[in-house]
């Protein structure tokens, strides 16, 4: 165990934990955040995706110590139910969820990509989303939501 300092959604937390603990466990169990989800624990599905220093990372396979010096953003850090971030609003506008479990990882993956590639076209967005899973297959609406947000970013 050792003290690890994390900056999550603009707030600094100092925690006493095993520095090998995956970041996901710290976010969801120590900080009780509901955005990042455990999907596979293998970095394969994307449900745990958070943004670390501007990059989408799979928090289930990222040791917490490697995130200690960075800025971490989770789904909660974007907006609130009363004032959602535009990408969150795009998912509401497109009614882009069924069970909703994967939504956090999908929004964070899309946001990190579009932050860096604001002019991405439909095909580039599709490729950027080629390693995240939605098993309800709400694909049509989710891709439409991401494109809706991307158009807003460009505009």
């Amino acid at each position, binding site marked *: *165990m050792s003290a690890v300092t994390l900056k999550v959604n603009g707030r600094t937390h100092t925690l006493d934990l*095993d520095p090998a*603990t*995956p970041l996901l*466990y710290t976010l*969801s*169990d120590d900080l*009780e*955040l*509901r955005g990042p*989800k*455990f*999907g*596979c*624990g*293998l970095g*394969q*599905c994307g*449900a745990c995706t958070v943004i670390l220093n501007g990059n989408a990372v799979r928090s289930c396979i990222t040791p917490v110590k490697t995130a200690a010096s960075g800025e971490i953003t989770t*789904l*909660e850090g*974007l*907006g*609130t*139910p*009363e004032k*959602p971030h535009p990408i*969150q609003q795009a*998912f*509401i506008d497109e*009614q882009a*969820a*069924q*069970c*909703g*479990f*994967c*939504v*956090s990882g*999908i*929004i964070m993956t899309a946001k990190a990509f579009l932050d860096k590639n604001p002019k991405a076209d439909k095909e580039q*967005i*599709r*490729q*950027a*989303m*080629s*390693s*995240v*899973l*939605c*098993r*309800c*297959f*709400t*694909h*049509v*609406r*989710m*891709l439409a939501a991401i494109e809706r947000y991307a158009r807003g970013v460009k505009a």
Partner: protein
Amino acid sequence: MMTPDMSSAANAALKREGFSRRDFLKSSGALIVSFSMTGQSAWAQFGAPVGGSPPISQLDSWIAIAADGSVTAYSGKEELGQGISVAQAQLVAEELCVPFQRVKLIYCDTAFTPDQAYTAGSQSHPANFNHANLAQAGATARESLIRLASERLSVPVDQLTAADGAVSVRSNPSRRVGYGDLVGGKKFNLTLDAKARRKDPREWTVLGKPVQNPDLPAIVTGQFEFVHNVRVPGMLHGRVVRPPAVGASVMSVDESSVQGMPGVVEVFVRKNFVGVVAEKPWQALQAAGKLKVAWTPGTGLPKQADFADHLRKQPVRDTLLVDSKDTEQKLSEAPAILKATYYHPYQMHGSVGSSCAVADVQGEKATLWSPTQAVWYQRSTTALLLGLKPENIRVIFRRGSGCYGLNGADTVTYDAALLSQAVGKPVRVQLTRKDEMAWENFGNAFLMEERAGVDGRGNIVAWEHEAWSPALGNRPGAGTPGNVITGFLAGFQPNPFRPSSSPAPAPTRYNNNSNGVPSYFAGRIDGADKGTGNITSERSLVHNVLSPFWTGPLRSPARLQNTFAHECFMDELASKVKADPVEYRVRHLSFPRLRDVVTAAAKAAKWDTRPSPKPAITRTGVASGRGFACVAYEGDNGYAAMVVELDVNQDTGSISVKRIVVSNDCGPISNPNGLRNQLEGGALQGMSRCLGEEVTWDDEKITSFDWRTYHSLPLGFDVPKIETVLLNRPDEEATGAGETSITIVAAAIGNAIFDATGARLRQSPFTPERVKAALAARV
């Protein structure tokens, strides 16, 4: 608003206040009284246990109206992601004449909600939207409120009207009385009135409209509470250690192997169930990995490559769904006959989040937060597992990751319950990916043979369907925890398989719940035609055999597999007689609603009427084609048809679906937006299943246990354009709608591949290797 708000706000309150809904109920019209607030455990704070389900015949079991006029509805049908919670709140708002936002919906909590068995099998829409249960409760409540207003205002009932949560005099709308004034906070004390008038769908103002899902703002901002997010004070974390091979048993467990590991609280073993409890989930995971367990060798598995032959050689228990007893003769007389064999693999639910539950077992009492599809059965079977009385267990549904049927939800609830009982503290268990995927109850494999004869005009004169389907375990139901892996490991047995050497008895009633009977059969039993087609020389025989793997319902169980064979074979027949696949279907259908979805899909897709395969096929490069399929889901529980347009790369064997048009009839449409979401998701999930999904194994264990070994289409695949055609039927009964489109995808895609290339795929999934093999086999 709906449960999620209840869920977010009230759940937060529940956390703070130790799970009491006392205040909530007080303000919403007391449904259940006599709460005790003594004691510290979750259960004690919750209060006296219910002895059983609130009586479903009583209005107060379904609807309560608070003094402020707000409405609380209680349902035994839960939100799994299929959109039923939105539609149920619409239904209550509609029948009660209140705004949608004024309805709170609480579903699936054994402390409050009526026992409606499972939320499964496309049964929620028919159960709660016709002339019983929640719908009839709404109508009964509205009429009761009008009667109460009649007494209060001294105006005859026929001169009153209900709107916006109040009853007013038609001729003088300023004379009105609100629901809160009429009944607020008190019970109705009424039995559901079968004669209470359901509103005509033509009068609807809330139902039938595309209402947005009120869960979404919380979901997209990370505020929504999934079962994975349930946190209970003092909660520990468990992990299970499953056997390394199918049929392996525990010989010994070396507890010293995890001694001294940080946070480890308990190693628990009961027969072949092994679990570890620790203070933190990461600690539990590491301990579960380090724990030394000696297992016996497994019982061995049949070779996957020969599995279809293996199925044919197993002891069987047979069921005849329909048998005109003349098929053999008619087939021998037919000018031409066609035979084909189809195989569908085991597939898995593969929820994106591995299953999770929280249990708090304190002495004789327990509270479970579970994503189960049946809270009351979870209660009775957990009682058996723990040796507790059912009435001392409360099961609270919390949404899990989308399940599509019997995923790990029930089994992980048992895991959490066993481990919580072992340590006497609340325990959360989330399965690892491998625990989930190697041990879930898979969707059944199916081997299917089709034989049919056609006459000189190309009409089908006789058709036989014969299927072999392996099964082991199932939903636990009211008393069989051994139907899923945890219950079995802990010492319970699954439903016994009893082979029978005698032939199946003749069917006495028509039941096409499994879609074992093709849509084109007359379904004649005792002289009455109950099917949807006009083929009267007909036979459908199912051989049930024992499965080496756990099986259970997976979205469109048996129906998808049977329909894959029927609808591909119908295409083969049409091709053999050089008929257009749509025209040929219509020719053999008698049921207007099924014919209508067929013609609606063809029309919307601008179907090119001609036989398959298309003329002048090239044998290399990219070929394009179109395919068709349709279904009367469960025989009579929803109707759908689909056109698929796709490209086949004949050099690589890869399939690229370009366009899907799906038509659907589910009776009166409750929420068009939710319905479209289900049809779209079903179409794409069906694509993923028929293009890549297949459970695999070696000689002792499952080898498809993560997303590298089990192949799901990701979000960013080449998603086709999907068009939905909704047929609204205001004069019909409500049917299911969540499993129709997925049922017909595999056949529509297989038929389109044939149309494009002349190659017939009879084994799902249509992997590039199988496509190339079928292309190479062309004559």
